[in-house]
């Protein structure tokens, strides 16, 4: 199965599960789409853009310029990709792109290793409500017993 790894700005690490849980390097093609319109919408100036580009230069990824959805859609088609795999994120703009792509292609989002693994959702109304629950795991290696 040919997988296309869509690396976005919320998963710029070679040990992210996005890389470690995908198929062999022969079939998984990592790409980053340099999307000027997206970065402008995120209010990113030159400082941030240079930081991201420098980070990409150390990763096993090919950088393409263009609209994210259109570029991924075309790469998917031209490379005969079976599935796009990307990093899970709360970023609404990226989630909207994922949703858009899912209408046409198979796409999976893989979460990074969690900070804490909780059995049930924490109360998020105030930090200390969350922390009183999270701290039971936060001081454990990998955030779990």
């Amino acid at each position, binding site marked *: 199965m040919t997988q296309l790894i869509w690396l976005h700005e*919320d998963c710029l690490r070679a040990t992210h599960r996005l890389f470690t849980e995908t198929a062999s390097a022969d079939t998984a093609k990592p790409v980053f789409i340099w999307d*000027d319109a997206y970065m402008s919408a995120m209010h*990113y100036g*030159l*400082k941030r853009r240079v930081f991201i580009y*420098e980070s990409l230069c150390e990763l096993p990824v090919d950088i393409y*310029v*263009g609209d994210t959805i259109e570029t991924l859609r075309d790469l998917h088609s031209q490379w005969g990709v079976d599935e796009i795999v990307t990093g899970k994120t709360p970023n609404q703009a990226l989630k909207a792109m994922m949703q858009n792509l899912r209408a046409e292609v198979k796409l999976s989002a893989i979460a990074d290793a969690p900070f804490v693994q909780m059995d049930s959702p924490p109360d998020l109304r105030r930090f200390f409500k969350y922390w009183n629950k999270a701290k039971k795991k936060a001081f454990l290696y990998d955030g779990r017993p």
Partner: protein
Amino acid sequence: MSHGETFAATGFHRAARYLGYMEKQPTQFPDRAALVAHVKALSPGVTDDAVSETRGGRAAAEALLAAIDPTAYGHNRNYLDGAVTRLSPYIRHAIVSLNELRNQALEMGDVKAIEKFIQELGWRDFWQRIYTQNPDWLWHDIEPYKTGFVASDYADTLPQDIAAGETDSAAMNHFIQELKTSGYLHNHARMYLAAYIVHWRRVKWQAGARFFLGHLLDGDPASNNFSFQWVASTFANKPYFFNLENLQKFAGMQAPCDFHTNKCFGGSYDDLALTLFPHMAAL
């Protein structure tokens, strides 16, 4: 399909786009200036020319990881010259994960000594969880202001003197220039500047949040905006503010904090509350 057929089939713009992303972008440059020039060429709408000295990439992150001191962090993190890690831009883009940073800290000291360090990592996790659960909160007031004012009492846009770093406060100007040139501010400096924008200048937190996101290398929609809401009191039980004594204690060695160039922060907390929040009964 040949390029000619693409032209014929879909027109010039489609063909230009096709040709453009068939071309992989370079990842090796003779020097940093060449990389910066390339990024500028890919960013036609960006007018800000500042580039931070902070380098992107895992190698730079690992150098910082090797130098963390979670125990010292617990003692002096609130001072602008405290033992903070400067890893935040790398955490922001998952170049370093919270999990690996916590795991490394656990190997460096007993749990009590590193408690504050790990709790601060928890803040990042907390904000990300809130964003995941309540994406609509990102740019909207989660709760009303608890300042005696309503949202419409606050200006929509950032005043030009703040954007330019030309306010009446030398300390705030120092922080603004640092933000704009380095893309980094110590967390306490962020709180000072955010409070100044929202409470002293009565500007909506959203305007301040946009300003920060435009410059911070670690600017994260969730951490940045919800922290602003915490300062503003739209996600806290009371507004965060400070006085000159506090500013001098924690920032006095790094920023110009004398009274004559920072008069607006002078006085006790009670005095300042009366000035900043005149419609509030008591904090």
